[in-house]
């Protein structure tokens, strides 16, 4: 069997349910793939693991993948799992924010570590300075949404499938909050996609292995979408920290299902228009640009096509 290692972007959770389902249900095995899943963590950069040879395939967000590609690391998208962005800025109504025009002078919590690119593009589009001055005050938000409870921030970054639930759990009610989804603000960028090193695509055997992997993963995702509760349980099985709860994972799975790509070709196909939209958003920021020029060859449909042909 072909040995492959998949590096996740974050800790074991329903965000990555499809891969765990495929592993648990033997979809990879059926395709002749021996897959190892490496969970990520707050300071694991999947691209770095990919460059070091610690993984064959990684899950990454497109903004940071494109930025890394511009740094000279030839990584290529071979399949896009999420078609929509789940990112949003969650603000307290009591802070007086009603629309993005009110951000000036407010404190916003943001994730960094390569997750900040969409935010920076958005602020640049709105014309806010992010380095102090008369723009917005940015906090590097830790791992949780505490700042909004403790009054340290007016807004925090949340994912629809994860942190937003925590905000509600923490005692804030939807009517106390106002949400700015990146999708709605026209600054959405593509999130979880699968990336490999460009030079490995020259090897037909590798492409074949990727295709089998992609096919099984897609099957896993489809199964997860249909059976969110069982999928969540499978994820829980694989969580080594023992900190995840069933409620939370089921809710996450339900939310994640809404984000899976909905193109006619099914989950895993990267729509060129969606790709172009992401590139445009990233290019549009004039201060601190995430990328400076149109990327070339940043994605390929070869693997997806091969997978469909299997």
């Amino acid at each position, binding site marked *: 069997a072909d040995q492959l290692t998949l590096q996740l972007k974050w800790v074991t959770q329903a965000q990555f349910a499809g891969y765990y389902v495929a592993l648990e249900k033997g979809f990879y095995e059926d395709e002749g793939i021996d897959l190892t899943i490496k969970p990520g963590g707050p300071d694991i950069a999947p691209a770095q693991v990919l460059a*070091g040879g610690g993984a064959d395939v990684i899950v990454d967000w497109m903004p940071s993948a494109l930025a890394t590609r511009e740094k000279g690391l030839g990584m290529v998208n071979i399949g896009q799992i999420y078609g929509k962005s789940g990112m949003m800025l969650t603000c307290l109504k009591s802070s007086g924010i009603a629309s993005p025009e009110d951000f000036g002078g407010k404190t916003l919590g943001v994730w*960094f570590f390569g997750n900040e690119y969409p935010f920076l593009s958005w602020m640049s589009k709105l014309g806010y300075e992010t380095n102090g001055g008369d723009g917005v005050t940015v906090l590097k938000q830790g791992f949780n949404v505490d700042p909004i409870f403790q009054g340290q921030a007016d807004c925090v970054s949340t994912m629809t499938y994860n942190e937003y639930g925590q905000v509600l759990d923490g005692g804030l009610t939807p009517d106390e909050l106002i949400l700015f989804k990146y999708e709605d603000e026209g600054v959405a960028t593509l999130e979880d996609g699968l990336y490999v090193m460009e030079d490995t695509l020259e090897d037909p055997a590798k492409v074949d292995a990727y295709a089998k992997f992609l096919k099984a993963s897609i099957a896993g995702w489809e199964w997860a979408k249909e059976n969110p509760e069982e999928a969540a349980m499978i994820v829980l099985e694989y969580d080594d920290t023992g900190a995840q709860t069933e409620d939370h994972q089921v809710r996450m799975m339900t939310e994640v299902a809404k984000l899976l790509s909905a193109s006619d070709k099914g989950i895993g196909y990267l729509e060129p228009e969606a790709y172009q939209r992401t590139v445009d958003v990233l290019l549009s920021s004039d201060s601190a640009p995430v990328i400076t020029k149109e990327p070339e060859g940043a994605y390929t449909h070869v693997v997806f096509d091969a997978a469909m042909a299997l």
Partner: protein
Amino acid sequence: MKSTLLTALSVLIVLVQVGASLTLSEGFMTAAPAWWLLLIFFVASATRLMNEMTRWLDAQPNANRLFKLVVPGLFAVVLLTIWQTLTRGYSVPSVLLPAPSDIVLALFNNGPVLWADFKQTFLKAVLAGYVIGCVSGFIVAQLAVKSRFLELGLVPLGNFVSAIPIVGIAPIMVMWFGFDWPSKAAVIVVMTFFPMFINTLTGLQSVDALHKDLMHTYAAKSAQKFTTTQLPQALPYIFNALKINATLALIGAIVAEFFGTPIVGMGFRISTEVGRMNMDMVWATIVVAALAGSISYGALALLERRLLFWHASVRNAQP
């Protein structure tokens, strides 16, 4: 004569290797593994030079202090050159490990950013936390040395707390003291308090029994005892704590920045730039941190030599 010639040859080989590592094109080691030969000769030559330099310096008891930095300097050159040779020679992706030359470039190109980070982390959080932690540890030790009750109660507690991995309190401190530097300073206060407390207490109690008796025969007041015997006797221990704390403080601040910061600071920079794949910038920040730490440590060590000229550890120290 022969040895002079050998030395000259060694210097030459070192220079050639350093030059080669900087100028040859990417991937030269992969292309021509024969370069390994030069690298091996380089290590041998540099070892020889370090040996000779050490011997020469040892024979020169009155040589300038600065000369003593030459040997460790050469050692650093060796390490950096090997690093440079291997990363460039095998074109290691800079995303994994940048070449030293890239790091130096990043240092020069990002001066203002690095300075702002340094100000935030070192000048604000580390200094404040270090001073508060050390001073309060010192003061509480005074109280404990005066009251047997406090000593009996606090010392086991101190020993217990110093076994706690204090980094664990970083998320709590961020929760309590906010995102800016005070939460980092708070972590440092907790980290540095106990080493200073335990060391000062041990120092104050280590007063020679004979000196204690002597002060007793003079019917000295406790303030007089403190300044004449206890404080000088405790100084070596206090310096010990100051030096330990100097390294702890920086680690504490950077770990605490991991759990939330404003968008400036050395810990912030490191974790953000890793995410952005700017490893040269990451290493540049590490260099700044290591420099700041080493210089603080060195300054403390110098001060210690000054103040403790009378202490056996200083008098017997190698030249």
